């Protein structure tokens, strides 16, 4: 809602400057988004009259003008072809800066002094394209008058961003009421003038009739008839005010309905009475598939939910939304039927949305207009048509009001007001505040007030609404600050604690945390080259996506992660170690709740040396991070990494991650082709783990002290040759399972293929650590276990023990 400051001032007197008013509004809940001065940059332009013109002696195209600007006559040189003696023009004196940034200086043009500039429209910033000559003002302009005043540009406009509960402020009278409530001194609102001279010889009943067929959707419908109107432009002052409020002037009749809409927050519609069959108005629901061509020349198909205004033959308007072309006011129109009505808000809202036709009218109807002021607004418009369209107002008003307004009475407890706001107000003070808001106290008891809410306050339903009004008038910033008393202890949920621990561990392992979009598009999965039946393609689609790129919910964190790594690779950042924890969504079928799982994904690109010398540094870096993570979560014994076959991973370099034998994730190097698709560095590896099981199984803070050994440890190195197909983890398990008494640790420290090792075999070396809690171990004991291990390795894998 754009509120012209001076226009508002015609309804109520207040001592605030535009800036102060702006602040007051914002602090009262009517947020001012912008405060604009319409004549910005034109403040110093004056109106002058050209009193004399001479040809320039030294230039054919230049003229020397004497311009009277009231207090003096100045000489100005111009090349404009349209200068004439006696015309009124905008003048910029020496020292004035134009909106274009041009500063006027005293200059000499071919030897003659110019003491200012006669301006064209483009020089004043009033039009974009270059003007062919100077701007010529109407003769009504006064010499010496400020240009902004004459043009109606001496006006500030406050742009209010109104929340839905401020529907009453969609009209200037409503805003004036808000100003009134702000003022400490009581003040009254100057109501718009209504002085209708009715044509008593011509009662409206002879010209028109109204029938409401659906009272629910149309509780009130009123009309007036204005005869013999002259369609022409509306007066300049009205046009200027409309423009300042952001409405384009059209003709006097349309402008008047818009003007009253802005005053009263009451949409009106003017029909050409000549096009209403028998003057008979019928308000009804449309028939299924009934058609109408609206004012914007579009044919619309309606349904039974739509309320329409009709005559006995045809639809003449979609109620509250837009008129039909067939009854539009045109230059030929002489008689007007003026509609002023109250339509049921929800129905208007649905229709406007269905037809995609939001309008100034529907915007107000769907928020609820003041049903009690319908007639007054109609009368105001009729009066203005009488004055500015030379119309004659027929006698009487047709007012069909089948569902009269019921007074809205709310009970509110004084104790509750004070308790809820944390203040202590006396009853008298509260009453005084309510009075400023035109809320009438109809009954008082010890602790209870019964108040009657004005009909324009359809936002008020219960005591909380009254309490808000009191808080607003009292001033939010005058309410003290306290803290709620509590004995409660705050907690994170179990899941949050574990997730936080995981994030900390991943950070400690050297990975940076990223956040990616969970709203993604099919393009994000394209470069992974997934088969159609891949589980990642079981996504949840958005029914009404803004665009395809944000058309579905992610099923995996990997596309976002890989994309983030690719972004860095493109920017010559070659080493990236990232992780993310977040939710993914799996489609469970139509109208079934999608499965939301929290996952952990991590990626490594360009990690340094590979400890095992297998050109898989990224893979082993991530694996190390995960192993440490599982170790710290005390899950090592439940977790296994086994050869996997994920389609987007390198077939020889991918593992499934199992928890108690059940797959919870994957780890692997991306396929070379996919690495190419994304322009990642070679050997980039990623992992993704579903954390659901982990959230369930991890024990938080479940540590138990174990005696520290007092006796020395003994270590033995063991190197074996074994088939290269045997996974090291199997060998490790075998060793560890051989003894559970004195074998404390088995550490792999070397793996080797090449010289001295036959084709198809590898050498692996372990350090075995033996220790007992109660004694120093003897060589014999240790040798026995080592021999057992050796025997098992030999029999199980035909391993050959390498001499040290």
């Amino acid at each position: 809602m754009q509120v012209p400051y001076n226009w508002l001032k015609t309804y109520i007197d207040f001592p605030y400057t535009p800036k102060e008013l702006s602040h007051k509004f914002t602090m009262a809940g009517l947020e001012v988004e912008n405060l604009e001065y319409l004549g910005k940059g034109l403040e110093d332009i004056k109106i002058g009259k050209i009193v004399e013109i001479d040809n320039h002696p030294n230039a054919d195209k230049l003229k020397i003008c004497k311009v009277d600007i009231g207090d003096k006559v100045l000489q100005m040189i111009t090349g404009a072809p349209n200068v004439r003696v006696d015309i009124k023009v905008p003048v910029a004196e020496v020292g004035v800066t134009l909106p274009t940034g041009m500063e006027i200086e005293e200059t000499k043009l071919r030897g003659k002094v110019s003491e200012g500039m006669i301006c064209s429209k483009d020089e004043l910033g009033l039009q974009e394209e270059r003007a062919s000559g100077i701007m010529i003002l109407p003769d009504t302009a006064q010499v010496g008058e400020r240009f902004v005043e004459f043009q109606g540009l001496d006006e500030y406009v406050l742009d209010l961003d109104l929340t839905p509960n401020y529907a009453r402020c969609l009209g200037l009278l409503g805003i004036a009421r808000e100003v009134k409530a702000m003022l400490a001194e009581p003040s009254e609102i100057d109501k718009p003038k209504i002085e209708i001279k009715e044509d008593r010889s011509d009662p409206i009943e002879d010209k028109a009739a109204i029938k409401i067929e659906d009272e629910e959707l149309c509780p009130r419908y009123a009309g007036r008839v204005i005869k013999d109107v002259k369609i022409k432009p509306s007066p300049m002052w009205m046009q200027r005010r409309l423009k300042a409020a952001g409405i384009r002037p059209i003709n006097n009749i349309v402008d008047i309905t818009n003007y009253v809409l802005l005053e009263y927050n009451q949409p009106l519609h003017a029909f050409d009475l000549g096009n209403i069959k028998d003057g008979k108005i019928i308000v009804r629901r449309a028939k299924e598939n009934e058609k109408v061509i609206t004012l914007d020349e579009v044919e619309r198909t309606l349904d039974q939910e739509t309320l329409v205004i009709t005559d006995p033959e045809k639809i003449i308007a979609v109620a509250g939304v837009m008129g039909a072309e067939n009854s539009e006011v045109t230059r030929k129109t002489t008689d007007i039927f003026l509609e002023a009505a109250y339509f049921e808000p929800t129905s208007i809202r649905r229709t406007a949305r269905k037809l995609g036709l939001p309008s100034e009218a529907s915007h107000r109807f769907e928020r609820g207009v003041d049903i009690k002021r319908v007639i007054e607004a109609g009368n105001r418009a009729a009066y203005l048509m009488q004055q500015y369209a030379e119309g004659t107002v027929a006698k009487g008003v047709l007012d069909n009001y089948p569902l009269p307004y019921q007074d809205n009475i709310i009970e509110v407890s004084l104790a509750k007001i004070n308790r809820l706001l944390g203040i202590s107000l006396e009853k008298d003070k509260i009453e005084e505040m309510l009075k400023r808001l035109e809320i009438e106290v109809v009954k008082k008891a010890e602790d209870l007030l019964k108040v009657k809410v004005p009909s324009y306050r359809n936002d008020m339903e219960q005591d909380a609404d009254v309490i808000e009004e009191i808080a607003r008038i009292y001033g939010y910033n005058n309410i003290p600050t306290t803290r709620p008393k509590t004995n409660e202890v705050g907690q994170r949920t179990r899941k949050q604690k574990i997730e936080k621990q995981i994030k900390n561990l991943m950070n400690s392992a050297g990975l940076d945390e990223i956040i990616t979009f969970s709203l993604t598009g099919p393009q994000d999965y394209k470069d992974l080259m997934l088969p159609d039946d891949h589980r990642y393609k079981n996504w949840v689609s958005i029914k009404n996506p803004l665009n395809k790129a944000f058309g579905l919910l992610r099923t995996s964190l990997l596309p976002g992660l890989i994309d983030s790594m690719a972004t860095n690779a493109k920017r010559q950042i070659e080493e990236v170690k990232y992780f993310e924890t977040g939710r993914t969504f799996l489609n469970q079928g139509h109208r079934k709740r999608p499965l939301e799982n929290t996952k952990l994904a991590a990626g490594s690109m360009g990690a340094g040396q590979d400890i095992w010398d297998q050109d898989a540094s990224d893979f082993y870096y991530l694996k190390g991070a995960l192993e440490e993570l599982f170790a710290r979560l005390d899950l090592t014994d439940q977790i296994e990494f086994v050869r996997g076959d994920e389609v987007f991973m390198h077939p020889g370099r991918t593992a499934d991650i199992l928890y108690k034998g059940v797959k919870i994730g994957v780890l692997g190097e991306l396929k070379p082709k996919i690495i190419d698709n994304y322009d990642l560095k070679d050997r980039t590896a990623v992992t993704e783990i579903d954390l659901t099981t982990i959230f369930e199984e991890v024990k938080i803070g479940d540590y138990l002290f174990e005696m520290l050994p007092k006796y020395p440890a003994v270590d033995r190195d063991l190197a074996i040759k074994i088939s290269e197909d045997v996974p090291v983890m199997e060998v490790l398990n075998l060793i560890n399972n051989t003894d559970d008494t004195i074998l404390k640790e088995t550490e792999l420290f070397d793996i080797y293929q090449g010289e001295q090792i036959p084709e198809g075999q590898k050498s692996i070396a372990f350090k075995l650590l033996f220790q007992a809690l109660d004694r120093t171990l003897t060589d014999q004991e240790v040798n026995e276990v080592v021999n057992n291990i050796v025997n098992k390795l030999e029999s199980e894998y035909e391993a050959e023990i390498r001499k040290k």
Partner: protein
Amino acid sequence: MDLLTEIKKIEKEVEKKFANVKDLDELEDLRVKYLGKNGEITQIFSKMGQVDDDKKPIVGKETNILKNKIQDLYNEIKEKKEKELKEKKLKEETIDVTLPGAETNIGHKNPFTHIIDEVVELFLGMGFSIEEGPEVETEYYNFEALNIPEDHPARDLQDTLYIDDKYLLRTHTSPVQIRTMDKQDPPIRIIAPGRVYRSDELDASHSPNFHQIEGLVIDKDISFSDLKGTIEAFVHQMYGEDREIRFRPSYFPFTEPSAEVDVSCNVCEGEGCSFCSYTGWVEVLGSGMVHPNVLKMSGLDPDVYSGFAFGMGWDRIAMLKYDINDIRVLYENDKRFIHQF
């Protein structure tokens, strides 16, 4: 040459040679030469047979004196040389202490995590628990239970993304309020951080996917002044003790009275600048007393219980606090960006 002369000669020689010893190796050679198994001293002793008996004690004594003298000299010089060597070594081991230390490779927290850790610590301290809820929601939790019936103009305030006619993507974290009231009786004190979704084009200040932090307190005798005090503690923690706060009336369907909270602009300190649209204030969160309809729908009697709720943009906090002017930077994950936090 008799032995005594020889001893004298050796003694002189020894004095000279030990005085000129260069290093420990040379010293060791001297030790072997004189005191070794076949050293000069041993040789003197082996020649004792040639000495007259009456002179034997003298020669023996002199030899022993010489032997001791050599031994002492050796010890003295050894100690000295070793000390010199240690000093030399210390000197040689000097390193450039200005060289950079070894890399530690600890990952960086995401700015979102920095923010939420700070917020969560504050609210845990005030007795709040941390809740969360599903991102896929129903009309009921996202709208109806929050007093936003169908056809309410307030639905225009948020452009909702739908999955089908039953499910939608939550447009705010407020459904967690309802879910918490569903499962827990008052007193309730929670904050709920999470992702939310709106049908917004991605640009410098909008994103279809962003984050919010919700707060809810329900108990007997909770007042608007409690709301103010709690928000004030939050604002001072996150934006600094010196920031001014103002509350102004606003509208949210699920609170009444409702308040928008502004803090004084950090850039211009309240003078007015382009960052705060020349108002001197920056909007940081929305809040209000829980609407009686919301309490009733969740089975609580508004005459017994009251409460307040607040909600804020998590992304926005990060942007304001860290001076980030484009929301997209938060989701782009440039390593150089993350390494700033």
